């Protein structure tokens, strides 16, 4: 099955007065396979919203190709738009209309039956607030309304820009169930951009991570995390005084291993396996009281890949990734040295 969304070499440059033009998208590539929940991740200002806008024909791009359902967009967008439901950026509506009227006008304009309005209001949990004017909605309610309008035409492709933004835990849980149900039992392809990494980890099947307008990595969420969890070991001793000895013993036995002292524990990376550590230390006459394998979560992978890991005593400015690793052609196989990322 061909990808639902294919983007290659997408460029968007904003010219700025008295300053260098700014490349919001700098040759971005992206593919989204059918029937999946695809996460679209990146630091602030990395071009996620810009990509989605370009995909929906809201802005003109300066280069690159985009296809949705195999059709070239934005040229052929009118032909495929009836199969796409989307929310871009913080959802905005005319403030004085009620939620229901907002949806009804959209439904009417595209020939969607009226009954769908009530269905989606029910689906996103806005039934009781449907009569109230949008100006009285909370952020989460607006977000739900936005998702409702995206669902209105029973799309085969759902594009949501930060749908979890402003939702309460119950709302997030509900949204996750809804999106997964849509993808896995209705065959809808869902693209969500998000900052909530734990959320992406739970929600998405695959993902694309971008930074500074370029793809850094893409693939299955589990694969990406696994590919970067050069698992580290946290070792504790009954007596903190044995820490320096332990470092010596370990590095002496395996030179390319790193062992860093972190308060009262030792963080070991690059060790062949936990049993080896236990044995080496025991051989040196040091006995440990605790040994834990720390698998990395998406957050550390993300920080590492996008180069936005916090540096003590410095704030990272928008678009100032410490360093952007070169995009690997088509996959996960990137090897990034993971130093100083723990903690």
């Amino acid at each position, binding site marked *: 099955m061909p990808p639902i969304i294919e983007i290659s070499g997408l460029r968007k440059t904003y010219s700025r007065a008295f300053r260098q033009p700014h490349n919001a998208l700098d040759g971005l590539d992206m593919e989204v396979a059918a029937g999946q929940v695809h996460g679209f991740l990146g630091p602030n200002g990395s071009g996620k919203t810009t990509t989605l806008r370009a995909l929906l024909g809201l802005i003109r791009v300066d280069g690159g190709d985009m296809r949705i359902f195999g059709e070239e967009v934005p040229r052929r967008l009118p032909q495929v738009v009836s199969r796409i439901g989307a929310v871009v950026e913080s959802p*905005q509506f005319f403030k004085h209309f009620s939620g229901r009227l907002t949806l009804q006008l959209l439904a009417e304009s595209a020939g969607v039956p009226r009954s769908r309005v009530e269905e989606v209001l029910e689906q996103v949990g806005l039934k009781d607030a449907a009569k109230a004017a949008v100006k009285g909605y909370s952020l989460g309610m607006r977000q739900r309304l936005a998702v409702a309008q995206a669902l209105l035409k029973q799309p085969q492709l759902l594009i949501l820009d930060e749908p979890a933004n402003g939702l309460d835990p119950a709302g997030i849980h509900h949204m996750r169930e809804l999106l997964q149900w849509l993808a896995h039992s209705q065959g809808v392809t869902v693209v969500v951009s998000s900052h909530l990494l734990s959320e992406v980890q739970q929600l998405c099947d695959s993902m694309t991570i971008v930074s500074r307008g370029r793809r850094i990595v893409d693939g299955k969420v589990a694969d990406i995390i696994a590919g970067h969890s050069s698992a580290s070991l946290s070792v504790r001793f009954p007596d903190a005084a044995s820490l320096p000895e332990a470092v010596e013993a370990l590095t002496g036995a395996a030179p390319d291993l790193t062992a860093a002292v972190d308060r009262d524990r030792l963080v070991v990376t690059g060790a062949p396996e936990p049993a080896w550590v236990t044995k080496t230390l025991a051989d040196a006459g040091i006995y440990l009281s605790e040994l834990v394998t720390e698998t990395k979560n998406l957050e550390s992978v993300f920080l590492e890949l996008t180069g936005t890991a916090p540096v003590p005593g410095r704030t990272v400015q928008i678009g100032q990734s410490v360093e952007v690793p070169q995009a690997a052609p088509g996959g996960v196989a990137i090897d990034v040295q993971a130093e100083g990322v723990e903690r």
Partner: protein
Amino acid sequence: MNLFKAELRRLARRRLSLVFGILAVAGVVGLTAIMWATSSQGPDEGQLAEAQAQADQWNEDNPDYGDCLEDEGFFEENANYAWAVEDSAYADMSHEERCEFYVGGMTAEDFIYTYTFSFENEGSYMLIGVAIVAGLIMMMLASSAIGAEWSSGGMSNLMVWHPHRMKVWGAKLGAALAVCAAAVAGVVVLAFGLLYLTAAVRGEVGDLDGVWWEATLERLGRTGLLTLGMTALGASLAMLGRHTAIAGGVIAGYLIIGDMLVQITSMSLPVDYPERFSLYTWVMAWISGKIELYNWNSSGMEMTPDVMVITATDAGLLLGGIVVLFGALATWAFQRRDAA
């Protein structure tokens, strides 16, 4: 078509539409009330008698007038009135008229202020005025409907649904024009009914013959076209400025300050017919069918000035050109620019 219907409904459901609708109807009713109160078909007997008494009183207090009436040779004998005798109109008047005219006598009519609203003479001007005010309201409504949608972000949302931008623009413009046509026609018909009734009851209808109907309908038709043009202009400006305030500011700014500046500069420049630089001149020419500008400078001491005639066709070309220009600019900008 669906989109057009949805846009119509969107316009109709706006609160501003309701407010403006109420204002327009209230304006027409208010105008009627004023005409109703000020117009009368003539004084009744009591008023006439009272006025006569006032006039008599005045004449009594003014001895010259009494003397004049009594003395046929008043003007010839009185050196103070020698100027009156030399007046060209003097010879054609009867003695009584002379006394009234030159000495200043009062009659009952001078103390009765009756105004009779004549539908035949004033009705069509009022209807044109009502139509223009309705058109201004529609211009504001159209620009606010589009401007508010841009600034609220609703426009981007709509464009996600309808990527064909020209269809969106067409539907919005079409809906605004349709509502404008309906609103102006409705208000004019309402005003016609109420003013006709007022004239019939409190004034005089006059002779609404074929000529009257033809002239009135012709002017009203052109005024109607003008209101459509204004609505399209308001919509285009809002599309260009993407904000109601910008569109409103440009229009109000031009009509008030811009036109004043144009007039001041053209006055200080040695050009003929400075009025032709004012938009109002062209609007007047469009509505009334023809306007004549006079140039007194060139003819020096002669009493016949040069005349510049602006016909409705000229005015239509200019005003239509302005509307088309802004419409094209708005279309071009909407087609090309990024939607924020």
